[in-house]
């Protein structure tokens, strides 16, 4: 195929119709400034040959000029020895018209025109095919030549490019690589794997059948785990219900057998009877105590009575004595009281007598004595000191005395010691007077009488003392006090009869004995305190047993109720019942996941096996390309070798034994290699009779002059390629490249 002319209208930069006419065989160069619209022309070329006339959306918008309008593209080309024109109108009134230029006849329209065009150009549907291998847009020349990869995204995309190459290489290598059938099997294995695992084959493809199967299996396994747990819980619960039910039955049986309630009744009755017996016994004991006390009291009273009676007798005897003594005492007291000859008086009398004697003696000694002897008929006529003297007397004149003899004379007699005599006489008078008084008081006439009376009195006093002492011993309170006591004692004993008391005591003793016996009987009738305590304890134990078993029963019933409730809840929930169903589902899902795992393993093994075989034949496979590429590499780089990966993807450049990855090469080297590889592809296609124009859009922007010259040489020498079109803004750089110079001219669409 050769391009003859390209015309555009309302296409991106070209609001006005423009054309590149007279494109010839061999090298064509369209050089011009940046704004000339070279890239637009390249785009128009793609639109004419690779895009459906019915495209819309972003792809259509990308073609429209800024001013708007429906893009029109027209390309004249030579194919199969004939000249053709394809005219595509995009947008509202879109159309595609294929015209045979020789006859001017419209060969096909629209979809049919596009099918015919594909056949003429070797495209495949909408795929760029061989055109894509050699048509390189500006800036993309830096990309790694990698057929069947989207140059924009770098991602794998079916573009029909590899198959175009393989087609071109054709029979040459078919025998070695197994041809179409091998590739087809490989593609099918790959597609089958793609459905199951990721492109890297390392992980399960999300939402693919294997992923879904695995997830379903895992989901079911999880649900089954849950259900199993619930089922286990239900089993466990049912077992616990069974155990608790059995325990309850056992407990109830035990209660039935143990007869604890009956036992309690018996014990209660026994304790009640026992209590009654014990109260009888206690009463008997109290009675006994009372009886003993009564008997003791009676005995005490009896003893007291006997004592009182004896004392009464004594007291009566004492009273008689006391009364006699009191009479005596009265007598003695009266005797004493009637006797004034008190010892003091007696002693005074005696003393006064002595004074009198002494005074008399002294007077006698001092006084004059006048003895008066009366002459008959004289008595009475004398007075001494005025006092008649009637009888003969001797007068002792101690001092002076006047003796008056009536009618005769007053004779005064004065004693020589008249003064002393007078004193003695005075003392004697005084004593005599006192003695006189005392005797008078005593009632006696003489001191001797007084003395005798005094002695009598002293005897009375002695007797009184004796009587008083006796009385005090007999009745300290005296006879009256004693009488009162007797009266009191008599009143107390109240006329009691000791004999009667004695018989009462005997009766009381008898009742004590009776009470004793009754107490013994009552005591014998009841349990000992220890035994009674034991019985009470037994009752408490039985009660505890009953309470315990009642609480056990209640607890068990409550537990059973709880468990049954839980079980009912679980039954209603029903998830535990899902186990068998989920087991079945898991079995299925697991089998499916395992089947798909096996499928992946099988497909991987198949793909790997095919790839290994392909790898072994790769050298053969790439030989047609490398055969054509090698001279160009030598021309530009001196000595170098390119390695391809699968599917003709450029891998690395080896220079002077050094292997360099394509991506690490300089921009210049990359674009040079890119151009050379595509040139080789174009040569290969041309060599297979399916030539397409090699179109380079601003291809070598980074290249230095030396490489530039070398590349221009290679392009100029690529005569095997029927048509090469270089679009460039570097006019001088390509000035060394011989060939037709193209220009953009105005066009008037017909």
């Amino acid at each position, binding site marked *: 195929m050769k391009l003859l002319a390209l015309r555009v209208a309302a296409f991106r930069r070209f609001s006005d119709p423009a054309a590149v006419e007279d494109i010839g065989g061999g090298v064509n160069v369209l050089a011009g400034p940046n704004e000339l619209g070279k890239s637009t022309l390249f785009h128009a070329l793609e639109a004419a040959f690779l895009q459906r006339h019915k495209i819309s959306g972003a792809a259509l918008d990308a073609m429209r000029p800024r001013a708007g309008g429906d893009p029109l593209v027209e390309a004249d080309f030579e194919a199969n020895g004939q000249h053709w024109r394809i005219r595509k109108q995009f947008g509202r009134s879109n159309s595609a018209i294929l015209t045979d230029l020789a006859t001017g006849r419209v060969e096909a329209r629209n979809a049919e025109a596009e099918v015919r065009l594909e056949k003429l150009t070797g495209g495949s549907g909408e795929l760029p095919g061989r055109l894509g291998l050699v048509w390189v847009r500006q800036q993309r020349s830096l990309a790694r030549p990698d057929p069947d990869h989207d140059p924009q995204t770098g991602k794998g995309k079916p573009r029909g490019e590899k198959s175009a190459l393989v087609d071109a290489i054709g029979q040459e290598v078919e025998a070695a690589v197994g041809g179409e059938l091998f590739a087809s099997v490989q593609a099918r294995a790959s597609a089958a794997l793609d459905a199951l695992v990721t492109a890297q084959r390392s992980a399960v493809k999300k939402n693919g059948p294997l992923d879904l199967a695995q997830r379903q299996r895992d989901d079911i396994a999880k649900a089954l785990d849950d259900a199993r747990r619930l*089922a286990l819980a239900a089993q466990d619960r049912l077992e616990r219900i069974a155990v608790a039910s059995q325990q309850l039955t056992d407990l109830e049986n035990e209660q039935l057998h143990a007869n604890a309630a009956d036992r309690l009744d018996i014990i209660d009755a026994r304790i009640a009877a026992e209590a009654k017996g014990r109260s009888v016994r206690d009463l008997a004991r109290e009675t006994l105590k009372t009886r003993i006390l009564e008997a003791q009291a009676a005995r005490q009273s009896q003893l007291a009575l006997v004592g009182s009676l004896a004392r009464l007798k004594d007291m009566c005897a004492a009273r008689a004595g006391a009364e006699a003594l009191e009479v005596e005492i009265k007598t003695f007291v009266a005797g004493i009281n009637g006797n004034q000859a008190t010892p003091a008086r007696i002693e005074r009398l005696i003393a006064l007598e002595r004074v009198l004697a002494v005074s008399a003696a002294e007077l006698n000694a001092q006084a004059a004595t006048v003895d008066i002897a009366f002459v008959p008929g004289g008595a009475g006529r004398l007075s001494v000191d005025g006092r008649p003297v009637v009888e003969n007397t001797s007068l002792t004149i101690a001092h002076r005395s006047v003796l008056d003899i009536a009618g005769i004379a007053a004779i005064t007699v004065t004693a020589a010691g008249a003064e002393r005599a007078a004193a003695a006489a005075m003392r004697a008078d005084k004593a005599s007077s006192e003695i006189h008084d005392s005797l008078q008081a005593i009632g006696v006439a003489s001191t001797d009488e007084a003395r005798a009376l005094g002695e009598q009195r002293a005897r009375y006093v002695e007797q009184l003392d004796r009587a008083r002492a006796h009385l005090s011993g007999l009745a300290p309170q005296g006879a009256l006090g004693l009488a009162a006591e007797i009266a009191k004692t008599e009143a107390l004993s109240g006329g009691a009869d000791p004999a009667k008391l004695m018989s009462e005591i005997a009766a009381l003793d008898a009742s004590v004995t009776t009470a004793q016996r009754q107490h013994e009987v009552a005591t014998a009738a009841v349990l000992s305190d220890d035994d009674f305590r034991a019985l009470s304890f037994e009752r408490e134990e039985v009660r505890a047993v009953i309470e315990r078993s009642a609480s056990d029963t209640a607890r068990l019933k409550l537990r059973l109720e709880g468990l049954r409730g839980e079980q009912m809840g679980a*039954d209603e929930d029903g998830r535990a019942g899902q186990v068998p169903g989920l087991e079945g589902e898991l079995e299925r899902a697991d089998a499916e996941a395992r089947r798909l795992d096996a499928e992946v393993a099988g497909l991987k093994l*198949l793909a790997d096996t095919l790839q290994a075989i392909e790898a072994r034949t790769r050298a053969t496979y790439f030989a047609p390309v490398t055969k054509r590429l090698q001279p160009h590499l030598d021309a530009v780089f001196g000595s170098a070798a390119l390695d391809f990966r699968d599917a003709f993807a450029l891998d690395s450049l080896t220079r002077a034994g050094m292997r360099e990855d394509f991506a690490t090469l300089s921009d210049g080297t990359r674009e040079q290699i890119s151009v050379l590889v595509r040139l080789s592809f174009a040569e290969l296609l041309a060599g297979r009779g399916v030539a397409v124009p090699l179109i380079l859009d601003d291809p070598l922007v980074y290249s230095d002059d030396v490489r530039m010259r070398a590349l221009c040489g290679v392009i100029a020498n690529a005569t095997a390629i029927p048509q090469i079109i270089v679009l460039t803004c570097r006019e001088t750089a390509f000035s060394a490249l011989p060939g037709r110079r193209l220009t953009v001219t105005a066009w008037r669409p017909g």
Partner: protein
Amino acid sequence: MTVRFVHTADWQIGKPFRNFTTGLAGELAAARLDCIGRIAEIAKKNAAAHVLVAGDVFDGENLGNLEIRRGLERMAAHGTLTWLLLPGNHDPARPGGLWDRIRRIGLPGNVTALTTPEPYALGADAVLLPAPLTTKNPGRDPTEWMDSATSPPGFIRIGLAHGSVQGFGSDGDSAVLIARDRAAKAGLSYLALGDWHGTRSIAADTWYSGTPEPDRFPDNDPGHVLAVTIEGQRTCSVEKIASAKFAWAKASAAVRSTADLTALERSFAGMSVEPARLLIRVALSGSLSLAEHAAVEAWRETWAARLRHLELDMSALAVRPAAADFESLGASGPLVEAARMLSAAADDPRHADHAAAQLALVRLFGFAAEAAREASA
């Protein structure tokens, strides 16, 4: 004095069958319920007033209430019959368990749950001695009490139990052992047993009825009920009557070519029910070329559609590429080489990729055939 009853067991109502496709699972579960109606018809046809179900009436203790109600409703629908249900190891009568729940739900008037080992009057002339299981594994012979169970003089004694008869080598799924001579020891005219899903006579008076509707690929003879007639004190007749909707069968075959599958096809045709009610499990062994293997796959697809269910286990089937396999597809060079490499791994059971290689070979051939078909189309 004649007593007629139907002896059945192992209904396992509510068994979910979810290891099968949803549709089939539903049909199988429904068939077990429908079976109750078929049993009722059989009972009526045989003038039997009672249906004795010897355990495992329900599939599990945690069964949903709806499933239980469904079963009870089916029995209630046949009110002229008395349904006597015995708890088995799948549905033991535990306190607070399934049967308490069934009582709460409400037993229809014509259904009796025999949850205690007590004589139960069966009509005017017979007494039924049930041996309900109260746990999955009671660890004792539940029929022992029958020896000393009293019954009015002259009454026919019928035992009803669930478990394995000692010495019979039963592979029933419970661990309950029942004395082989229980009928003789306990003076039973008939001992109705459940647990062994196939129909089997242990003695003239001791029978397993088997499940009325099979629920697994069996080693025994399921799908029947027994119509029992007792005259006087003797078992007069025990008639085995088919009751199943579906038939299950398993087979194995060594194949060298698809021609060997025709024997299998003949055996399907010989089954008691038509193919659409057949569930078949086939294990294939032998060795096939890739083309034959593909043909077996095609055969599987055909029969999977004809039968109600087909499980074809081809894991023991070796694949050996024949020269013709690839020649016929026009494959050469690298594809044949790949097949050779894979075949070497597939033929070596110790090879790490043994199983994967087998599948890779089948896929290689499949893809190649597909591509060839498309290319020629």
